[in-house]
């Protein structure tokens, strides 16, 4: 069965209108907040800038890592939630469907129009995004970039593979790493994320 993204979007939009007495939105197993993409972009790109040219690579790695770890914990919570069980799980027949389900949730969260272009089970994931808010935000604020800028989606793409093919949670973290060979911020027609087995040794190796 194909993943019906519209059902997931509907569930997220309806669920995000419900909050408990403390003003917190508990949805899909996590505490959700709704805030301007301008905030996230300013935070990431100002951080990168303040780290300076000598620490630019380190800044990128930190931002990607923050999203990778977040994506791993977040989507673990999501796939164990009652909302996932009711809305998404009935559409899932394989691990590849699970990844398509993750991507549909990310679309529902407003992260971009993620399209799963290719999955080689256990090896590789290729996701295309025409409207990443990170690439759009960078272009709007700074103009064309010299390098890729979608740090959040890059970390998240790796997390999807960790969860589906990296082994039991939490040991599978960082089994995969992702690159962004194409990014709209540097003039490409879309952003592309490729997650593959990480060359970095895991902590238990």
């Amino acid at each position, binding site marked *: 069965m194909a993943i019906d993204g519209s059902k997931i*979007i509907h569930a*997220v*939009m309806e669920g*995000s*209108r419900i*909050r408990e007495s*403390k*003003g*917190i*939105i508990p949805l899909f197993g*996590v*505490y*959700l*907040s*709704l*805030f*301007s*993409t*301008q*905030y*996230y972009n*300013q*935070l*990431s790109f*100002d*951080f990168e800038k*303040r*780290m300076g040219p000598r620490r630019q690579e380190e*800044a990128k790695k*930190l*931002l990607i*890592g*923050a*999203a990778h*770890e*977040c994506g791993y*914990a*977040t989507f673990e*919570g999501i796939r164990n939630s009652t909302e996932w069980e009711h809305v998404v799980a009935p559409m899932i027949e394989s691990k590849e469907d699970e990844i398509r389900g993750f991507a549909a949730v990310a*679309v*529902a*969260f*407003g*992260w*971009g*129009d993620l399209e799963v272009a290719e999955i080689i089970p256990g090896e590789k994931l290729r996701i295309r995004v025409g*409207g990443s*808010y990170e690439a759009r935000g960078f272009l709007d604020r700074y103009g064309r970039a010299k390098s890729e800028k979608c740090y*959040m989606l890059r970390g998240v793409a790796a997390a999807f593979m960790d969860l589906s093919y990296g082994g039991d949670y939490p040991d599978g973290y960082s089994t995969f790493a992702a690159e962004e060979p194409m990014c709209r911020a540097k003039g490409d027609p879309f952003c592309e994320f490729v997650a593959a087995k990480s060359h970095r040794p895991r902590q238990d190796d």
Partner: protein
Amino acid sequence: MNELKWTDELGRKGHQVMLVGESIAMHCHHYNINLQKTLEDNLGAEGVRLLVKAAEVASYSGFRSLLKQYPRVTTLKSKLEMASVMFQNCGLGILHFQSIRAGGGLIVSPSNHHVTGWLAKHGRRKTAGCHFVRGWIAGALEAIYRQPLGHYTVEETGCKMKRDPECIFQVKAR
């Protein structure tokens, strides 16, 4: 107050999620707290300043749009009520504006997203940590009082992240 029409204001434009005409993203406590920790750990006080500033700029911009869209919301009381509703509806927590004047004031938060998230991920901390909320308050008040960005400073004198009973924010005009 002219009721904030939340169901009309939160919607989608293609793949984007829009709130009062501005692009927003839904993110959970894992990401929000990871970003905060990354900035604090690597840039120290400068990281905190960036966190406050980014929240202030976004909140200011969002509030100006909101007030434009609701021109019949004119009294201070109704604008502050709208700010509380907006904060709560965005899943950011509860804010009580206790004594607010153009020159500053006091705001109390008995719960908020960043406190819940920080405590869930890292437990108690030694210093106040609601930098996002400080910026959010400054930006909202600057829009409400039609002041430029940077007009207010917000300090957090009590914080639930360090197990104080409430988060307390002191606002002063610069």
